[in-house]
């Protein structure tokens, strides 16, 4: 089974600064999808950004970007110009393209991000 590791249980960042959240994963598949989800205290998971493994270009969504290193199996999230609303738990997730797994997500244990005013 695929495993996803987030080695930073907690991170903090000053408002307007940049922070990077780490994620590594283990897989024998060559094609897959990676995601970062945000879970605010209300608990509804919100998609932040996604990356297809076959794409070499790193995904970017406004202030959020990833550093995808396929050989190293690393998928970090960079948040630029941090805002108070970015405070949440962030989960890295892996999804296999194989339909026999039901396309389930494998999640890391999460990183709790605090934004300091």
């Amino acid at each position, binding site marked *: 089974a695929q495993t*996803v590791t987030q080695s930073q249980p907690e991170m903090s960042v000053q408002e307007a600064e940049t922070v990077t959240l780490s994620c590594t994963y283990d897989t024998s598949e060559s094609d897959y999808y990676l995601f970062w989800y945000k879970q605010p205290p209300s608990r509804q998971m919100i998609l932040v950004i996604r990356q297809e493994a076959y794409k070499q270009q790193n995904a970017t969504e406004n202030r959020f970007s990833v550093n995808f290193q396929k050989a190293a199996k690393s998928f970090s999230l960079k948040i630029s110009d941090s805002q108070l609303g970015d405070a949440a738990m962030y989960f890295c997730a892996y999804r296999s393209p194989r339909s026999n797994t*039901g396309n389930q997500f*494998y999640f890391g244990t999460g990183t709790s991000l605090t934004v300091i005013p």
Partner: protein
Amino acid sequence: GAGVSQSPRYKVAKRGQDVALRCDPISGHVSLFWYQQALGQGPEFLTYFQNEAQLDKSGLPSDRFFAERPEGSVSTLKIQRTQQEDSAVYLCASSLLAGAYEQYFGPGTRLTVT
């Protein structure tokens, strides 16, 4: 349109009671997933439906857990004879297509077994 909704949002059950958790996916979404999220952990897969068919139930922790989606829309996760270790947040997610890469999550049901 409306997102994924779950009810109840909070449930307290005495050990040994049966509980039923409901998920209303986004209308028209083919795939539906249930996840269990223990405190301080990431969500873990429980089961998957494609329309009304339960195609994967490999994540269900015991035969006390049962899920159904009889008409291919609303789904119910039932836990019989609840135990303290069942205390967790139960998340439901849906996606438009069977192969769609994005899942939309509901707010979850926090189950506390006393």
